[in-house]
C-alpha cells in the first residue's frame, strides 16, 4: 500500500474527517484519493493560515481534521497557530511535505525548509518525521492520539526519503 493511502487509512480509523489542503506535488496522490472518498470533507482554501482557521471552526463544530501542505505553508500559518490553535487548545494534525533538503534543486525552497522545525519548536508544536513506509501507520496514529487527547496541533513531516521528493 502506498504511504499516502496508509495515512488516509489512519485518518479514517481515528475519525479525522475534515481535510484541508494547499496544493503540493508530494501530497497530490493523497489529496486526489481523499477527494474520491465520501468519508472525507475535502476543502481547498487560498492560503494555509485560512486552512488552520477552517479546521479550528470545524473542531468547534465537532469535527476533527488535518491540514495537508508543504513546508512553505508553515510560514504562512505560523501566527494563527500561535494565536489560535495553541492558546485555544484546538487540536489538528498537520501533514507537511519537506522541501529544501535531500535532492532539492530549487534554491528558494531551502530557507523555509530549514526553518520548518525551528518554527514548530518555537511555537511549542511537536513534530515527527516519516522516513520509512513501515513506520508510517505507527507514527501517524501516535501523532493523532497525541494531538486529539492533549488538544494541541501536532505535525508529521514527510521526508523526501519516503516520498522521493519533487524531482526535476
Amino acid at each position, binding site marked *: 500500500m502506498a504511504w499516502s493511502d496508509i495515512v488516509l487509512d489512519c485518518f479514517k480509523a481515528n475519525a479525522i474527517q475534515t481535510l484541508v489542503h494547499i496544493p503540493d506535488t508530494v501530497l497530490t496522490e493523497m489529496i486526489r484519493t481523499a477527494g474520491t472518498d465520501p468519508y472525507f470533507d475535502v476543502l481547498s*482554501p487560498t492560503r494555509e493560515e485560512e486552512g488552520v482557521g477552517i479546521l479550528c471552526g470545524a473542531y468547534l463544530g*465537532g469535527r476533527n481534521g488535518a491540514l495537508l501542505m508543504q513546508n512553505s505553508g508553515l510560514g504562512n500559518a505560523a501566527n494563527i497557530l500561535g494565536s489560535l490553535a495553541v*492558546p485555544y487548545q484546538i487540536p489538528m494534525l498537520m501533514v507537511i511535505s519537506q522541501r529544501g533538503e535531500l535532492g532539492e534543486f530549487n534554491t528558494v525552497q531551502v530557507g523555509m525548509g530549514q526553518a520548518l522545525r525551528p518554527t514548530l519548536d518555537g511555537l511549542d508544536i511537536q513534530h515527527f518525521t516519516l522516513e520509512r513506509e513501515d513506520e508510517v501507520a505507527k507514527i501517524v496514529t501516535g501523532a493523532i492520539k497525541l494531538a486529539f487527547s492533549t488538544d494541541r496541533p501536532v505535525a508529521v513531516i514527510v521526508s523526501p526519503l519516503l516520498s522521493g521528493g519533487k524531482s526535476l
Partner: protein
Amino acid sequence: MTDASPRIHRQELARTFVSSLTDQLVVSGIGNACNDVYAAGDRALNFYMRGSMGAGVPIAFGLARARPNDYVICVEGDGSVLMNLGALATVGSYAPQNLAIVILDNGAYQITGGQPTHTAGAVDLAHVARGCGIVSSSTAGTLDEFTSTLDKILDAPGPHVLVARVDRNLSDPKAHQPRRPALIKYRFMGRLGTLEDVNRLAWE
C-alpha cells in the same frame, strides 16, 4: 459610496444585531467587533477571537461546514477582512447556505490608532464579495437598512455578506470579552454540545 457617506452608530448597531439573535452561532473577530458584540449582550454561543486577525471568516466557514443545521454569523471588521480577502473566495466557491458575514466597516484600523483602511478609499467590500461569487452581498448606510437586510438574511439561504458602514465611536473600555482562550472554547463547545462529538469521534 464615499468616505463622507452616512455611517451607523456602531454600538447601537451591535445592540440591534445581538437583540435579533436567537440560536445562531456567532464568530466575532478581533478588536472592536468582539468588544461591541460582547458589550451588547454576552452569550455562550458567541466565539470571541483574541488575536489571529483575518481568521474570523475561515473559522465561521469551518463551523458552518461542520454544523449544516445551525446558522453561523461572522462579525468582522473591514481591516480583518482585507487582511484575508482570499477567505471570501473560498466562501463564494463552497457557498455554505448557513453562513452570513457581517462586516463592521469604519474605514479605519481604529484599535491601533485610526489608520485608514483601503475601504476609506477605493475598495468596496460588497463588490469584492460579489466578485468572489457571494451573490447576496450588500451595504447598509443606516440602521434601518441594516436591520431590514439582516432580517431578510436570517430567513434566506446564504452565503451572505452585509457590509455595515459604521462610525468610529469608541467601544466601552470596560467591555472586554473573556480573556482566557480555553474558557471561550469550552464554553462555546459546551453550549453547542460538540465536546461530546470530538470525544466520541476520537479513537477511544
